[in-house]
Structure formats: C-alpha cells, structure tokens
C-alpha cells in the first residue's frame, strides 16, 4: 500500500540558504504524524512546501501516489491536502461564516457545505454563536478553532496543522489538543507540527524530530516520549 504522503529527500531554500536539507518521511492513511523541533528547525518551511506555497529546491513529494512538488497551491488543496497555517491567518475583516465558506471555496455542493458549517459550529460552539462577527475580533484560541474549522471545510484527506497550540493559554491549548484527538478518533489523517512536544507525541502514531533542517530522530510517538534525547531537548527535563 502506498502512503498517503511520501516525502523523499526534500530540500527547500530561501535564496541560497537551505532551510530544509534533505528530509524524508511518510504519513499513512488514518495516522497522526508529528514533526517536532525547536525554533527555526524548518517545520513551517516543510509544511509550506507541501501545500505549494514554496517551491522545493530538490527531492520529491507524493500525495496519494501522485507527485505534487511544483503543483500550484490552489491545485493541491483540490487534491485533498488542507493546511492550517502557523499563526492562524484567519481573514480578519470577514465574518466567521465567510471564513468557513472560504475553506469550502472549491466545493460545489451547497447543501453539503451548509451541513459542514453546522458541523464546525457543533465542534466549536463559540464560532456558531458569533457567526456574523468579524473574525478579527475573536480571541487567539477562538481564531485557532476557526482556522482548524476552515481547513476541515475542504473535506481534506490529509490535514496539516502548524502549531495549533501556539500562544494559547493552557486551558485553550488543552481544548485544541482534545479536538485534534477527536479528529484522529474520527479517522482523519493529520500531519501535526508542534513545539509542544509532550502533547503532540502523546497523540501521534509516529514522530519525527527536526533540527536545523534535518531529521535527527524518528520513531513511534510513545517511543519518542520515552527517549532520553527528546526528554532533554524538548520536554524540558534534565
């Protein structure tokens, strides 16, 4: 069986500087895979390349067996790969409902879109209560919910989340991670980027540790949680 996503020797450069230096990893259908690593490790760069916002300098990306490196971003979403970007990037001057509709931009099934908007409101009731409000007025945690809801609106086969817990209060962070767990339980395939390694590894079937553009460790999520090196570097233990 081919993996949902296969990344092979991917390299990405800003100008002449390589930020991602030849990484390989896979995401199987139904799995949650996490990329962890410190600031500047290349996690966001990797996700932006997978979704087509950046062009790779080398290597291959295959999604559902088909090469997508070099495919424009708007075509990649169409293939079923959704990306909830770092920093949320909701459309601040549009309403919550309009943000969700934009997530469904490529869909033509009006009734289905309506149902999925309702599902997003069920998942995050606060969004439903404020559907006609400008998204920029939401709190950080609520914006994160909106960003995740919006990414789900495209009915993705693979959902990429870039630091969904960034900058959130512990309670909010827990709520977001619970939602990721719910999505996992519902069978969603997820590629999760996190600095919060504890939470990410607890959820993940598989984890990859990224350091300055290279993968330095990979294993099952639980195994990485128990790994000394990981405990020292990312879980704040000594």
């Amino acid at each position, binding site marked *: 069986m081919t993996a949902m996503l296969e990344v092979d020797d991917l390299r990405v450069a800003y100008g002449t500087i390589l930020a991602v230096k030849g990484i390989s990893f896979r995401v199987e259908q139904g799995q949650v895979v996490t990329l962890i690593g410190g600031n500047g490790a290349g996690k966001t760069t990797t996700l932006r390349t997978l979704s*087509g*916002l950046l062009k790779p300098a080398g290597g291959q990306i295959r999604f559902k067996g088909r090469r997508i490196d070099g495919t424009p971003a708007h075509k990649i979403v*169409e293939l079923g790969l959704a990306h909830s970007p770092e920093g949320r990037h909701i*459309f601040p001057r*549009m309403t919550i409902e309009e943000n969700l*509709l934009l997530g469904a*931009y490529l869909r033509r099934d009006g009734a289905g879109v309506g149902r999925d908007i309702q599902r997003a409101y069920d998942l995050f009731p606060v969004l439903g209560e404020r559907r006609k409000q400008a998204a920029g007025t939401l709190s950080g945690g609520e914006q994160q919910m909106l960003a995740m809801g919006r990414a789900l609106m*495209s009915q993705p086969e693979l959902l990429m989340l870039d630091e969904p817990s960034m900058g959130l209060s512990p309670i909010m962070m827990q709520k977001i991670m619970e939602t990721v767990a719910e999505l996992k339980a519902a069978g969603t395939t997820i590629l999760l980027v996190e600095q919060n390694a504890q939470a990410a590894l607890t959820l993940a079937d598989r984890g990859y540790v990224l350091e300055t553009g290279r993968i330095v460790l990979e294993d099952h999520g639980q195994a990485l949680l128990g790994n000394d090196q990981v405990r020292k570097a990312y879980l704040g233990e000594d």
Partner: protein
Amino acid sequence: MLTQFVQQLANGVVLGAMYALIALGYTMVYGIIQLINFAHGEIFMIGAFGAFTVYRYILPDGTSLWIALPLMLLGGMIAAVAVAVAMERFAYRPLRNAPRLAPLITAIGVSIALQEAVRLYYPDARSKLAFPQLITGSPIPIGFGASVDRASVVVVLVSVICMVALTLFVRRSRMGRAMQATAQDPDTARLMGINIDRVIVMSFLLGAALAAVAGMAQGLYLGQIDFRMGFIAGLKAFTAAVLGGIGNIQGAVVGGFALGIVEVMAVQYIPGQFGGGAWKDVWAFALLILVLVFRPQGLLGERVADRA
C-alpha cells in the same frame, strides 16, 4: 445664494461620480496587489474612445438613443477591459516579485505608451474629438431654483448603479469573497484553493469596466474627448482613492464624491486671487497633501497605504 449652492452641489456630485468610478479601479488593484496602477487613467481614456468608435464607425445614422447608448458603453468596456487585461498580463505579471519601484515605473511607461498610441494611430486624435451629444432635452429642476441637464442625471444614475452592483458582487459572490480574501492575506487565500492570478485579472477587469463607464460619461458630460483626458482624471481619481482610504471600496466612492464637491465648491467660494476655475486642480491636490499628512489611512481607510 441657496440656488447657487444647490447648483454647485449637484455639479460636484456629477463630477464626483466620475471620480468615484475611476477611483474604484485604483483601489481594487491596490487592495489586491499593492500596485498604484498609474496607467488606469488611460484605461478611462480608452473606454471613452471605445464608445466613440462604436458611434463613429459602427452605428448607422439616426440610431435610437436607447440602442446607441448601451452599444457605445459596451464598446467602451470591451476596449478598456481588453487593454487592461493585456497590461496586467504582459507588463505587470512578469514583475509580480520585483521590487516595488519596478511596476510603478512600468505603470508610468504604460500610461505614456497608451496615450501616444492613441494620439498617433487613432484617426484625428491629435486634436480634441467632439463626442456626440445624444442626451438632449431641457434641464430637470431639482428644487431651490437649481437644475441639472439630462446627461448629468444619466451619468449619476448609471454610476450609482455600477457602484451598488460592484459592492454586491464583492460582498456576496464567490469571486468577490475570493477578492476580499486575496486582499487580506494572499498566501492563505491560495491555501483555500483560490487562483490568485484569476483574482488579479478580475480586479483589473472590473476596474476597467467601471473606468469605461466614467470615460463615456465624461464624453457625454463635456462633449469632447482627447488622448490626454486620462492624465488629470487619473490623478484626481487617485486622489479620491487615497482620500477615502486606498484599498477600501466604500472609501473610493466617498472619496470620489467628496473630491468632486470640494473642487466645485472651492472654485465657487474661494474669493479673489485664488478663486476661479484655474485653481481647481490646486485645491484638489492640496487636499491630497493634507490627507497624506494628517490622515494617511484616508477617511474610511482601514488598509493603511503603508507601502505606497
């Protein structure tokens, strides 16, 4: 006194409607790609020439007003849109990732090239061309002893219809939402599946269609057109767009009407040496400078023109 004021207010509204129509094109393109398209004035001029061409070469003599006006408008729009879309494709798109000065200078080059092309190749365009005065009939009284001619009424009505239609399009349609999303966050818009190139072409296309309406309106209103008409009108409309807050669609409309009214009132009420028609452009641009100094985000602006 009151008659004079109401009369000038009406004149200002007519002028303002034309400024607003052109300003919308500046503001949409700026909102989406942060380009001040200085060739937009020439799109307005080409719209006027397109309408004139339909009248001069296509319509048989004695065509009814109700057939002539829409066909002329259509001709103007086709010409303006074709030139604007070609301009985006061949002049601006290759510079999408270039330093900001490059497209700006290109815009000035395109502006001069279009003026010269019309001057050199359009028959008799070296001098002013008389635009047909199709809308005749006695002026319509609007109260307080003031009145407006019928052409002006048509100009204002058509302008307002266009502005309402544009607003509804941007707010309600799928493409309109894509335009808003692109203006607010282009990379994230791409993650939604929006084809940014198409959105950019659409902003040029809509701006050109509105500019063509303004071009034809000016022909009907002033009774003449010429290859230079886009220069001053373009600068004024740019002023209107900045006045309202560049990038902001409602701002362009408000700025357009505000500028038209201020200009007309300044000519009427500033006495002595600085009064009169010769100074009207000075007042318009003085207003631009004041806005840039004291309220650079414009009257309604939320999109600060930080990179202009």
